[in-house]
């Protein structure tokens, strides 16, 4: 019991020769809430995966309570008292709360059979110490998100976890649930349990954290007591100074055409609560906002994937009903989805088949696909987007991430949309391809079309957008013309809601 709860020193990690962590020191004291912040790709998750035993320790050392450890699996880390509260929950939804909490550590009766009553009793006692009220016998399936998260925490505590790692724990919680979670975190802290709190939400970081560590480009920029820093200071440290990455905004012509798309009071599900938006011909608007602010949900609603509960969509002055993606395609709206593996491509199908999938109806006569016409379309886009492939018959899974993304873009440009919605189109794409994608977006808009561009990477958002809409809690909170945004920091402040 000497030394801090966790002491990581000189941690380094490379993937395929790319340095993602370099000489990182990270210390967690007993009974503190330690915020870990940084931009996308700063190395937060990698550092935590090393601490949880998911990635092996290659460079540097880890000490728990002063004694050196070397985890071979996440199970080892659990035994040492390190527990990850998963962002995507790690519960078996078909089992009950108590059965999940004690999975693999079931109570047994005299005959050696599982004693569910005893487990429910112990779980109930555990919930009492946490001061939460969940029926331990309920199936996890029936629990709301917040209660699943509490179940995960109970599971970790039942294993005598001393350090909890929470990755964006509030991203799927409402405000009142967040308050309850923070109160629980305070109580755990009082019992000497340490919490590593990963979050993009600066307000919440300043609300709960005792200390804060900023990572940027795989390095620890600094670790400070929360009282010694300001939100602006933290944001500056996250962004850094030199990091413009060559994305420059160029004034563009023709952004002020007539109104193409108008959205009024659009609501859908719990995450979208009355969005108003106006999109003109030739215009590119950027959607900024935190995780869970409703950006992807807006894209899904416009494209007819999620059911619209209220509000209207007016296209070219006429109200339209978009009940399915086919309706959207017919209205000449295209969506480049967030996850190209799951939503964008059929990975085992060829470049050609993927690119033509939304076009099949248009290329067919009496149900027979006109292959020659299809080939011409595909070849034209492979050319114009400079897709590097050994042939259009190659399965897309053999292409690099950047080229796969270009296939998704080709697939949707081929439908000749007027409105292109792009959700994180540069995620997992190399820097060269990012420039090309940005260039394509500009060309597309310059031809009199319009783009809704969603990105968490503020430099590229600033590079292409004529206006930036900041979303928060399912609404458009602010609309800022590009020329009024001085720097990336300004936009950061707007997204975080600090002034």
């Amino acid at each position, binding site marked *: 019991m000497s030394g801090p709860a966790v002491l990581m020193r000189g941690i380094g990690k490379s993937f395929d020769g790319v340095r993602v962590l370099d000489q990182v020191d990270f210390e967690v004291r007993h009974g503190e809430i330690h915020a870990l912040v940084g931009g996308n790709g700063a190395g937060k998750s990698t550092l935590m995966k090393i601490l949880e035993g998911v990635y092996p320790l290659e460079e540097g050392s880890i000490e728990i309570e002063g004694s050196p450890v070397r985890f071979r699996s*996440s*199970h080892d880390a*659990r035994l040492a008292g390190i527990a990850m509260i*998963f962002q995507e*929950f*790690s*519960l*078996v*939804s*078909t*089992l009950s709360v108590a*059965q*999940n909490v004690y*999975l*693999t550590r*079931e109570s*047994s009766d005299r005959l*050696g*059979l*599982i004693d569910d009553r005893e487990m429910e009793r112990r779980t109930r006692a555990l919930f009492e110490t946490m001061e939460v009220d969940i*029926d331990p*016998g*309920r199936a996890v399936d029936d629990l709301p998100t917040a209660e699943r998260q509490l179940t995960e925490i109970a*599971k970790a505590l039942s294993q005598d976890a001393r350090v909890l790692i929470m990755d964006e724990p509030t991203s799927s919680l409402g405000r009142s649930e967040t308050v309850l979670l923070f109160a629980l975190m305070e109580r755990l802290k009082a019992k000497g349990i340490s919490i590593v709190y990963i979050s993009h939400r600066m307000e919440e970081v300043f609300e709960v954290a005792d200390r804060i560590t900023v990572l940027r480009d795989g390095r620890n920029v600094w670790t400070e007591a929360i009282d010694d820093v300001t939100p602006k200071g933290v944001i500056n440290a996250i962004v850094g100074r030199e990091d413009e990455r060559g994305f420059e905004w160029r004034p563009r012509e023709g952004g002020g055409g007539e109104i193409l798309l108008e959205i009024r009071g659009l609501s859908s599900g719990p995450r979208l609560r009355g969005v108003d938006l106006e999109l003109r011909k030739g215009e590119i608007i950027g959607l900024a906002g935190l995780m869970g602010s409703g950006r992807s949900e807006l894209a899904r609603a416009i494209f007819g994937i999620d059911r619209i509960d209220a509000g209207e969509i007016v296209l070219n002055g006429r109200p339209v009903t978009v009940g399915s993606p086919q309706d959207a395609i017919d209205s000449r709206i295209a969506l480049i989805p967030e996850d190209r593996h799951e939503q964008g491509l059929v990975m085992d199908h060829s470049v050609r088949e993927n690119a033509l999938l939304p076009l099949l109806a248009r290329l067919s006569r009496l149900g027979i696909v006109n292959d020659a016409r299809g080939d011409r379309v595909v070849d034209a886009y492979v050319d114009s987007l400079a897709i590097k492939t050994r042939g259009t018959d190659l399965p897309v899974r053999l292409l690099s991430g950047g080229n796969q993304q270009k296939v998704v873009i080709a697939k949707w440009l081929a439908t000749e949309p007027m409105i292109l919605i792009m959700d994180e189109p540069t995620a997992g794409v190399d820097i060269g391809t990012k420039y090309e994608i940005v260039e394509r977006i500009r060309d597309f808009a310059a031809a009199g079309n319009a783009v809704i561009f969603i990105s968490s990477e503020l430099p590229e958002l600033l590079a292409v957008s004529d206006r930036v809409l900041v979303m928060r809690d399912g609404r458009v909170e602010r609309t800022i013309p590009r020329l009024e945004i001085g720097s990336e920091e300004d936009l950061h402040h707007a997204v975080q809601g600090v002034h």
Partner: protein
Amino acid sequence: MAQGGSTDSIGGSLRRASRAFDWRQYVIYIGFVIIFVFFAITLSGSGFLTPTNLLNVFRQTAVITVMAVAMTFVIGAAQIDLSVGAVAGLASVTTAMAIHSFGLVPGIAVGLLTGLLVGSINGALVAIVAIPSFLVTLGMLGIARGAAMWITDTAPQPIAEETYNFAFGSGDLGPVPTLAIWAIGAVIIGHIVLRKTRYGRRVLATGGNAVAARFSGVNTRQMTFLVFAVMGVFAALGGMLYAGRLHSGRFQWGDGDELSVIAAVILGGTSLFGGRATVIGTFLGALMIGLINNGLILMGLESSQQMIVRGVVIVAAVALTRRK
């Protein structure tokens, strides 16, 4: 304090009671009763309700029940085994041949080992080589059936060992057929293992969410391997019961049983997607299929019509038990 405690537990049990009242879970029971009453009324003159007839239903479904108990674990682990019928046929002939050559006890051992061997190969291919169980066991269906035909030259293998025939399906202990004892025994043991042991809990966790199970310390590959190995043994036992009841081993025994076995499990309320399973439900599912077959025969329907009615009932029942 004591008062507070008791109010709590009353509140708790009320909550539990209301939670438990999800009628979907009871479709199999309701359906079973409806079908039983329907046949009891419409077929009251045709001897449906006589003890002999009902015992017959039991006898006819016993082998399916035994195999379906193990299949409940396979499907609960989000896997499938299509080879059970063929394995039953193979085990029936290996048992018969071993009894002929080596005697009773070696015969029984060879039969069970046949199932264990085939099940272990299935399990290893699914759990370790990571081939989908649908493909592995579809292949094994052909292999096991072919092997049974090959080693017997497609000839029936008679069993003259009376003790064997008595114990494995021909005999009666008082009024109770031995077949029924096997079936009931399998159901009781299966129910306890699924509900009350760590093994059962881990199987369900594996089927419900393999990633979460692994992160909780469940060896999901081991669980997958084991459900197939045990399935093999139970399929072999099913074949041995056919052999004992019909005094011979034949490669045809069990032909097509995989469909009845899977139907019984799904009808019983076990989720085809894994994670949710019930052995008691499976038992009723098997009995329900038996009742339908029996009732339709007594109604004088042709076998072609029986097949259609059976198919409709199964699809309808599964549709009703589906959660949204």
